[in-house]
């Protein structure tokens, strides 16, 4: 029979790590989505030339490996004397990283709303803001949701990289236990299971929404 020396308090230790993973992911996805919405609308509404500086910066965040971004940002904030705790640095960098992807999702979704639909809205007397609020965003949301869910799940797992700044999140908690208990296979299995338990509700929530919307089409 299978035996392990892992105790309940070890499991609680992993749960605490999972809490850190959730916290970092929450701030990264929330911040990243808010920025992504703003940048995405800008990218969709102004000319590509005028948006070039923004596009360039976001491309940097999408192209440079997240690990390098985290380590460099942490070093730079220390040199600049900002004295940010690693948690804040992690959340900010992950949020920017998320926003770079989210911007493209939002831009693509807005572009997917047919021009004639927007013209119809404007010709009824709706202002640009009303057109955006009542017509463009609801329609774009349906296009963006699957990609946005994918992005959130990606960030949940990428957030493990913040262990390089000394944060004890889920994966790092697992590593500590492996060092102590010397049961790498079993512990990684448990850690993987916890990641799955965190991701699964998000994925299900997404497909539920999609299903409900599809019934209307």
């Amino acid at each position, binding site marked *: 029979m299978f035996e392990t020396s892992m105790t309940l308090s070890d499991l609680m230790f992993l749960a605490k790590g999972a809490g850190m993973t959730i916290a970092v992911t929450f701030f990264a996805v929330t911040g990243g989505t808010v920025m992504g919405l703003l940048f995405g609308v800008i990218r969709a509404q102004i000319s590509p030339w005028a948006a070039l500086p923004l596009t360039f910066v976001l491309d940097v965040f999408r192209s440079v490996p997240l690990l390098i971004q985290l380590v460099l940002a942490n070093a730079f904030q220390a040199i600049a004397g900002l004295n940010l705790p690693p948690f804040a640095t992690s959340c900010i960098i992950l949020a920017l990283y998320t926003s770079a992807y989210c911007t493209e999702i939002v831009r693509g979704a807005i572009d997917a709303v047919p021009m004639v639909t927007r013209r119809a809205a404007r010709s009824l*007397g709706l202002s640009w803001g009303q057109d955006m609020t*009542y017509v463009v965003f609801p329609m774009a949301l349906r296009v963006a949701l699957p990609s946005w869910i994918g992005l959130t799940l990606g960030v949940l797992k990428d957030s493990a990289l913040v262990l390089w700044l000394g944060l004890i999140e889920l994966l790092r908690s697992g590593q500590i236990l492996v060092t102590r208990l010397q049961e790498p296979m079993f512990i990684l299995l448990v850690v993987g299971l916890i990641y799955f338990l965190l991701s699964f509700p998000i994925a299900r929530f997404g497909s539920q929404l999609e299903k409900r919307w599809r019934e*209307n089409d």
Partner: protein
Amino acid sequence: MIEIKDVYKSFGTLEVLKGINLTVEKGEVVSVIGGSGSGKSTLLTCINGLEPINSGSILVDGVEVHAKTTDLNKLRRKIGIVFQQFNAFPHLTVLENVTLAPRKVLGMSKPEAEAIAEKQLAHVGLGDKLAVYPGRLSGGQQQRMAIARALAMSPEYVLFDEVTSALDPQLVGEVLDTLKLLADDGMTMICVTHEMTFARDVSDRVAFFHKGIMAEIAPSKEFFNAPQHPETQKFLSNIRS
């Protein structure tokens, strides 16, 4: 009254309107016919300010559409437009499609807007489709919904841009009947159309556009019985043959 005075309009180097003059009186139905690329659809989108013009002026009840000081959102309340392509808001029910603008633009209460929408939808024969999403409607029903949506704003003018062109032939009739009903009610209408029977029977005057110029305009009987301009004659004989 809609007054179009010497309007020029280009897309880049392509001149689509070359000095159009047209006055449409209150209660009048004017049909605009012509080949594709003759500028007739562009004229409609210029009238409600969706497209800028290069020179000339368009006045709706004395208000210049393209003046910088004109509040287009306000002006568009009295100019309805229905497009060729279906443009329902797919995430809203038929009823919500029609109540959106009255509620958000005119600030009506929900029951108030719904009462008007239900009346307009019944008028176009969609009284039993209120809770349905547009994706479930046929093309003809979608166009009739678009007409009801425009009418719910109680516009004084309605512009129709080839509203039957994207429809299957068997659905054209139901939409034209709706337009006829509207004309009988005394609505001021400009209809860009390829339906010659409709143009002849329903409109007061018919205009023929050719390469960005209004080649001819005449009362509909005269227009079809004795077209003056050689291009009009050619166009009509091509259609009849």
